[in-house]
């Protein structure tokens, strides 16, 4: 019995894990930068801004002085943002056929097609559902 419960929990965890673990939102990503590098940014990058990778460049220039945690995490943050952007660019293409099949007559724009696909989740193909998860659109 105990083993069964354990197996069940493991399955549940695994079912939840992929979507949550693979991409994160922009707010969540950049929050890591504030948490890990906030003090270094205020110390060494007083004139750098969040625009044009100014903060990233400044932290790179001050690599030797910046905390170890910041040096490790700033690269992570940059790739997290890129991963989410890529997932969002890919989702509409991956879902084209599902949208054609399940959302006939739904007009494009303003999220109408996405709303339709979210509603039709059970009929939507696995690839499209995963793409929606990775894009953070659920």
């Amino acid at each position, binding site marked *: 019995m105990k083993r069964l419960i354990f197996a069940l929990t493991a399955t549940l965890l695994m079912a939840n894990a992929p979507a949550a673990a693979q991409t994160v939102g922009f707010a969540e990503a950049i929050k890591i930068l504030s948490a890990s590098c*906030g003090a270094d940014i205020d110390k060494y990058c007083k004139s750098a801004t969040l*625009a044009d990778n100014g903060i990233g460049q400044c932290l790179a220039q001050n690599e030797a002085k910046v905390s170890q945690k910041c040096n490790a995490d700033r690269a992570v943050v940059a790739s997290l943002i890129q991963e989410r952007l890529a997932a969002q660019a890919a989702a509409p293409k991956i879902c084209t056929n599902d949208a054609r099949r399940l959302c006939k007559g739904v007009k494009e724009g303003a*999220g109408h097609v996405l709303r339709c696909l979210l509603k039709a989740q059970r009929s939507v193909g696995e690839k499209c559902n995963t793409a929606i998860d990775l894009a953070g659109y659920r």
Partner: protein
Amino acid sequence: MKKLLLAGLSAAVMTTAVVGSSAQTQLNRNEIINSLQGAQQKVDVSADALQKAAFENIQKYPGANSPQGVPLWDKLASLRQFNIEITFDFDSARIKPESYETVGLIADALHTPYLQGQTFFIVGHTDAKGDREYNLELSIRRAKAVREALVTTFQVPSQYLFAVGMGEEQLREPSKPDAAINRRVQLINVGYR
């Protein structure tokens, strides 16, 4: 017994949920989306015209505080909009690291299909302390800084975002001109253009 236990358990879960949500930042992506999305009438106000009107308001009604707001501004009142607090260094357009998350939330919202393809004004406002023209210039620089961060760091398509500064010309709380509530960044959905 089973029922009682279940009831107790669900009550406990609910409590956790409530505590959890209040412990987080109040702001979330869906709140921004819900405030900004939706059908609305067309408003033919350009960002340039609005910016010009703000400068003209200072020339027309000089003085420490403006006796009245910018007439063109009223046209935007009916549009979908959202006020957000972003903190900057004193007298500067440098966004503080503590506000990175907020800018990221705006990016999260603007990158959803619900808002994609629509045009937004990013409007900076100050409180009424200090010189009006200085405040206007500062708010322009701050609105631009937010726009730049969205366009570069978070790659929101640049053609959909316009930065406008209103300085202290459109206070949120005119009865308390120096209050912090007036300092804000406002997102306004001006629709498909």
